């Protein structure tokens, strides 16, 4: 690698109130965090607010990182929860899972089945609602309550959709590719 400081060095410098290191950390992570958050929420202002909240939290508690795993994963954990709490205070903004509604083109579908095999196809057959729940709970690691805030549905719906999605995937994987 080149001589640029790694994220942990930057975070230590941020703990010493180093604004330059903070800026570098921001430039390194704000972009992809914004892209990933925007995949969870269509309201760009909310995403921008969540990014701001995330980095303010990092500045205030840089020692919140315990040194386990990647700093990127730690940042994402903060960011998605900041987005959830921003959504909680502003009602009426629907978090839309845009990609859930876009069907992959036929050739992409073939590529996908090559690359991901049965799971990719099984996931693709889930309804958009179930995919959203899988994404929030399984992939983003949110609790059922947090997922409910993000998706603006009752907690009970999150739980039943998750249950159904799992049953669906299990059945699809058991019967093999169609």
């Amino acid at each position, binding site marked *: 690698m080149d001589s640029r400081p790694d*994220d942990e060095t930057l975070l230590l410098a941020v703990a010493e109130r180093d604004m330059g290191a903070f*800026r570098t950390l*921001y*430039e*390194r*992570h*704000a*972009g*992809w965090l*914004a*892209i*990933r958050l*925007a*995949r969870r929420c269509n309201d*760009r202002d909310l*995403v*921008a607010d969540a*990014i*701001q909240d995330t*980095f*303010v939290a990092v*500045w*205030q508690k840089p020692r919140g990182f315990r040194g386990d795993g*990647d700093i*990127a*994963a730690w940042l*994402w954990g903060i960011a998605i929860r900041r987005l959830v709490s921003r959504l909680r205070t502003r009602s009426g903004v629907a978090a839309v899972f*845009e*990609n*859930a509604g*876009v069907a*992959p083109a036929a050739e*992409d579908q073939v590529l*996908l089945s090559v*690359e*991901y095999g049965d*799971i*990719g196809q099984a*996931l*693709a057959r*889930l309804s958009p609602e179930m*995919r959203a729940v*899988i*994404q929030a709970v399984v*992939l983003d690691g949110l609790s059922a309550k947090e997922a409910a805030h993000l998706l603006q549905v009752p907690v009970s719906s999150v739980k039943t959709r998750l249950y159904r999605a799992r049953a669906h995937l299990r059945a699809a994987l058991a019967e093999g590719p169609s």
Partner: protein
Amino acid sequence: MTGWHLDDDMLRRYVERTDSLAEGASAEQHLLACEPCRARVNAAASVIELSVIDLAAVWGHTRDAIEVPRPSVFERLLRGAGLPAPEARLVAVASAFRGVWLAGVAAVLAFAALAAAFGHARGVWVFLAVAPIVPCLVVAAGYDPWMDPALEPELVTPYPALRLILLRTIAVLALALPAVLLFGLLVPGETAFAWLLPAVGFVAVVLAASTWVSPLRAAIAVSSAWLAVVSLLAARSGSADAVLQARAQAGFLALAAASFAIFLVRRRRLRQLRTWR
């Protein structure tokens, strides 16, 4: 690290959000662990029109948010009491709330109360001389333009000067009165509370007088007068009874009411507070 990276097509689909859930999920999982690919996403995002989030502006807001100083303990107390944030700031910036100043006031009071507790008759006189003038001195310091240079521009803003000064006065008294009361507990007998009405009267006099002269000047004049009266009484009778008498206390009450009325009538003058110098 596996050597596997997002290829350009996957990257484009990820940023454009045309990928499937499975592909997006593996891209995201990979991005958490792969700095080079994150940098590529950042670069792609800045090129592709899709990320309309203005990250430079967000950085500006973030900087603003972390550079705002934390409100002082007192300001947070005021906000807790229901005062809107901008008003709490206006009230709390008064010099009187700086810790050193409060510590000085507390030291004077402690000295007076100790003198009263251990020095018998003469000590009670010291307390009676000091306690009533502390609140009016603190109030004057709370809005004298000399103590708080920021006050002059504040007073010419549309914000009502009367409200500002009264809010500061109440806030200062909320700090100073309990302190004096607490130290007063060290003082034996009724003297412990005899200073209250004189103190209220002097605060009102200072408020009224500040429509003519600088608040600090008014407070110092009132304090000097009170000290002169007390020492005169002490020299003549050697007892604190005169101030405790109902008639004297009623006089202080009347003084407070009259002064406050004058203050309200002349409140327009508050916009051009006289400075100490």
